[in-house]
């Protein structure tokens, strides 16, 4: 019996000392539970162009912020210009535009797993299974098809000018061909075949799309600044918000946003899909059932992003950054009352929730 007891104790000690692949490094800055960085909010800090100082700020359940988590864990800079970030399963994908790569991290530990090269990556979207799409290119672009198990690029799909954000809708992915405002179309990709099945022409600068509770797709087109050959401003094309059918993506309505010279770039939706938000020198909100879609001014602060916490409906917005100094993100209630402000990294441009 004594031998059995010692064997039991020995085995407990032995197995408790075994190195776990998912072991959270000590210290894991900002981590408050055993899931590490898997759950929380992640601020995308672009950093300064050509400065290799892009970063991720981690906000835990207590809304305590830890900056530079990747740098602190891995002792190496994340890269140059963090364009976007997404969590797919237990992996985080940091899309580093000017480093021309996508960095893959373990979301429990924030440790580097691998990376893969993309020459002009913008955004990544998981489309289920082992597949994700990465938009690529500032000219006539492509969508790279990525195997998220091997983290390799398996194929690419030609789309339009300067593809940016994507939205998955009923077996299709809508790609915003923004082209820095010069693009004016949406490419519709069939997930099953990885092929473009439709191209929808809208107005200048499709920037972001969301889907509301009614199944309708809303697309914000930013418009663009028009220059002559000598870079003199000669005018602006209007910002337009489109309401599309959620199945065949035909236009049902459109609304001009703001006045001449306004170029809003962000659109979001509440967790229940009933309230739509957009930025235009302040944050506006309107009901998805609203036929006028002009909205009411909810937050007058001039911010650069809006992201809605899917769990609470709270609004998170990044402040104006000078891209040289730490920036700020602001936390509001769904009705626009400021709850908190957090100092984050350089050039905050959005918040990702997981």
């Amino acid at each position: 019996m004594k031998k059995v007891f010692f064997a039991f104790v020995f085995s407990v000690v032995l197995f408790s000392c075994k190195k776990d692949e998912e072991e959270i490094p000590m210290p894991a800055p900002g981590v408050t539970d055993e899931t590490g960085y898997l759950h929380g909010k992640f601020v995308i800090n672009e950093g300064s162009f050509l400065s290799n100082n892009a970063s991720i700020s981690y906000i835990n359940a207590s809304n305590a912020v830890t900056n530079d988590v990747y740098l602190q864990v891995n002792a190496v800079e994340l890269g140059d210009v963090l364009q976007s970030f997404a969590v797919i399963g237990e992996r985080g994908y940091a899309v580093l535009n000017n480093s021309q790569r996508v960095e893959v991290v373990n979301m429990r530990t924030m440790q580097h797993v691998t990376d893969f090269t993309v020459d002009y990556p913008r955004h990544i979207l998981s489309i289920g299974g082992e597949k994700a799409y990465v938009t690529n290119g500032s000219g006539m672009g492509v969508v790279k098809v990525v195997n998220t198990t091997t983290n390799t690029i398996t194929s690419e799909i030609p789309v339009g000018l300067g593809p940016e954000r994507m939205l998955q809708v009923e077996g299709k992915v809508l790609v915003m061909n923004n082209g820095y405002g010069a693009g004016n179309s949406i490419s519709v990709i069939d997930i099953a075949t990885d092929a473009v099945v439709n191209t929808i022409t809208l107005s200048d600068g499709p920037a972001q799309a969301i889907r509301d509770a009614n199944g309708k797709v809303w697309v914000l087109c930013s418009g663009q600044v028009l220059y002559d050959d000598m870079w003199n401003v000669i005018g602006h094309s209007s910002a337009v918000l489109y309401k599309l059918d959620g199945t065949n993506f035909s236009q049902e309505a459109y609304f001009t946003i703001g006045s001449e010279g306004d170029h809003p770039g962000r659109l979001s939706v509440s967790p229940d899909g009933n309230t739509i938000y957009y930025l235009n020198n302040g944050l506006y909100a309107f009901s998805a059932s609203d036929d006028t879609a002009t909205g009411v001014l909810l937050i007058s602060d001039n911010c650069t992003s809006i992201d809605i916490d899917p769990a609470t409906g709270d609004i998170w917005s990044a402040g104006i950054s000078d891209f040289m100094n730490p920036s700020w993100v602001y936390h509001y209630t769904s009705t626009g009352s400021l709850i908190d402000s957090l100092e984050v990294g350089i050039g905050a441009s959005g918040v990702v929730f997981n």
Partner: protein
Amino acid sequence: MAQSEQDTILLSHTAHELTIFDQALLARPDEQRAIFLNLGDSKFFRSQDLATFLDRKGLAQISAYGAPGTSASIRFRGTSSDQTALLWQGLPVNSVSLGSADISLIPVFLFEQVAFNTDPDATSLPGTSLGAAIELSNNNLSRIGESVKLFSSYNSLHNSFSGIDIALQFPQAQTFDSLQEIMVTGKEKSAFVNGSLNSRTKVFYQDLRNDFSYTDKYDFDKPVVRQTHNNGMNYGALQDLSWKWGINEISGHLWYQQRNVELPGIMGKSAEGTSEQDDEFLRTAISFSQWRKKLDWKLTAAWLDESQYYRDLPHGNDSWGIDSRLSSKVLLNTLNIDSRIAQGLEIKVLAFSSYTRVNNVNYTGGEKLLWWGQAGGSLKYVLGKNTFKGDVRMDIREVATKPAWTLAYLYTLNIRSVSVVPEVQTGRRFRVGDFNERFWVPGGNPDLLPEQGMNYKASLAVFSSLHALRFRIAPNIFYSDMTNLIQWVPGAGNIWSPVNLKHVRTRGLELPARISLSNEYWNYAIEGRYSHTIGKAVNNNTWNDAHAFTMIYTPVDVVASEASIVYKHYSISFSHKYTSLRYTDEQNAPYRALQPYQLFGCQAGYRMEGKRIGLYAVFSIDNLTDEQYESVRSYAMPGRVYQLNLQLEFKYIKQQLK
């Protein structure tokens, strides 16, 4: 003249001590406020670009974007590169468009003297510099005689450099003694009447391969990466001509250079780089000078034609790119008058004008005409051991509604008998925003206010000699208070635009010292320089700043030292430079700071000088310990570099200095 020795930084055995004659020829108004590097006899560094050379000497902070031939700028005492003026033939040659001067373009080979005027005189050095003025010059032509020098070097970066230096004189008149006496004593000499045509031609070609590996610390695996996008070539010619007769001299100068280089990318996955840059300029100047007993004057006209083509063109699925084609044409005129109207009393007058046509084909709203006028004067009075000097300058720019004033005064107590020279100096200076800062489209800010600065300096020079032992130490403390510092920040729509920062202060200490011992065969020398600089942005308009942050790329401590031994024809030397931590962002994030680094170097040389032929061979190792460091964040610098320099000299006249 009394302080010429203590402020002269000598390049160990490779440079000769500047004599009073040298100082007179340099014709600085305040020799005690300048640091002179005499490169003329330096065989070690002739193929180096000026940026690398100055960096090793620790005289200024050099920001280099990688290996030789890549852009590099210079800053003093916590100021920016735009605030450092580069002068050639007394004319400002900073980029009209960019404000700064790219000193990586300039091989040391082209010039024999570099004067650092860290407290620029308001009247004799045209330019608007808050930091310092660097003047490039060559030896007076009449001193050189006739010679042909062939120079070649090759290093382990697979970079090569070839140059030829031809000095001619018709006839071989010994006029320089008279000139010397005129310059030093102000006396006219009847001997100085024979005509003399002097010519100096320098031509060089530099092939830049920059073939080196570095540890990419921005890649997770920290791989050793080969630099693959940093090739280039650089070639040019410098022609100086002078014709002297009597007390008159006409001189002409031409400097042409072209450089085509690939620019390296930042470390990380995009290390290959995709951008390229072509620089080309033609600088010409013609001067007429006259020396009289109580008055010298010099009239100069210059034409500067420069272009810079920077491109980072689209590749792959990328249509975003930069296609920047800058060009500028500048007409400069200066008039300098130096009058010694009474014993101990000297008055100088400067008039300067500049007309510039500048354009950036794709990024400005057409060609701009900029003009700039300066007029000023100084009064210097020597009373016994006391020297008083005050100067005033007025600047008129096309953007200014009223003239801007620059004022400075200086007091020196020359206690020569005990070899101690205290000095105090105060000056106000300013700088107007450059072309890009005002007219870049989109983002230029035509409403920028001029930067202004008040500078204060106090120094104490002590020098002494005991038999063959010579000692010199010249510490100074400085303080600068600058307002409306111009800095680029992103604005609406993420379009960058320059703004005025409210308040920046720098203060510090500089401590140059040298000790040498020599006899008939041996010469031992140790020299060093310590700089301590605190530069703080104490009030920044762009954020509510309760703290004072250290200015970026401003190391607090820099120590440079060199020890050399010369025995007959042989020499060896060792050098060391320590640069402390440098912040790279305005919030001084410690984990983004560039870590301190130390560079060691050594050289061994052989010198054979015959009556008609001279041969110099120098083998050097730079960065002996293969230090992996960054001068500008994310740009890899080369590790250990081996280099062989050869110079063959054919001489027809060997002038003897007095």
